[in-house]
């Protein structure tokens, strides 16, 4: 294994991570809800349990953050390398799988692990392992 020192950013990663943790803390203590992006977005789209308003507000905050990040430190626009057909396939799988598995990286990987949920440890273990294998196959076997 070789470490990519040129792209490794431990301090901004830790600081950004701490902000994500603070957001999760604020939502659970303030409103009593879990900060899981898949559940929030899926629940907002579903809109049947009377909780759509706060969920859409949170999604709006997420979408507004880049303007603030650009103003504060000139955050650059993301670079996508995937083709449009791959983006469509990837989006369908991510949306379907995250709802079926009751969570994504934020719901299981951050909140679930932070509250020591065995269910989230299982889900996180499975999705990390599968993602490592997927990238290995895509980059080193098929490419």
């Amino acid at each position, binding site marked *: 294994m070789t470490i990519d020192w040129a792209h490794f950013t431990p301090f901004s990663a830790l600081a950004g991570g701490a902000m994500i943790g603070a957001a999760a803390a604020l939502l*659970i203590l303030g409103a009593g809800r*879990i900060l899981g992006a898949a559940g929030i977005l899926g629940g907002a789209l579903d809109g049947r349990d009377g909780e759509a308003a706060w969920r859409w507000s949170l999604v709006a905050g997420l979408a507004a953050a880049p303007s603030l990040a650009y103003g504060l430190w000139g955050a650059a626009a993301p670079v996508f390398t995937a083709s449009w057909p791959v983006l469509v396939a990837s989006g369908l799988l991510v949306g379907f799988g995250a709802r*079926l598995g009751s969570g994504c990286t934020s719901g299981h990987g951050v909140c679930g692990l932070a509250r020591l949920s065995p269910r989230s440890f299982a889900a996180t273990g499975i999705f990390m392992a599968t993602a490592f294998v997927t990238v290995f196959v895509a980059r080193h076997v098929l490419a």
Partner: protein
Amino acid sequence: MRNALALAVGLIFGLGLCLSGMYEPTKVTGFLDLAGAWDPSLAFVIGGAIAVAAPAFALARRRRAAWLGGEIDLPKTTAIDAPLALGALIFSVGWGLAGVCPAPGVVDVGFLSPSAMIFVAAMAIGMLVSRVADLRLRGARIATQDA
């Protein structure tokens, strides 16, 4: 009040994703590519997030109500079952393919990235399809029980 809090939570979450670099698909795949030049940053993002969130969840478990009133809704499901495993598996094939998961996808739409818009539109369809599939599975289960 609840909507204002949720908006602030979304902003802090989104800023954290921007600062940490997690909104960059290449940063995510750089972490997921163990056999290539490996960028361990993502582990620090998750670690930092858990370090701050864990005490809050420990506190939340002992509190009866949220600051804004209402119950604190911690997940009650504990079963490690087939939908959980299968869902995590399907989710992460998609995550590995493009390097985008739900929250960074929405943040990248905020950067007005056309690729992110395609990804998020497909993700929304996947979520709605999963909801229909879930209802059908439940319907089938109830029908079986009735019979």
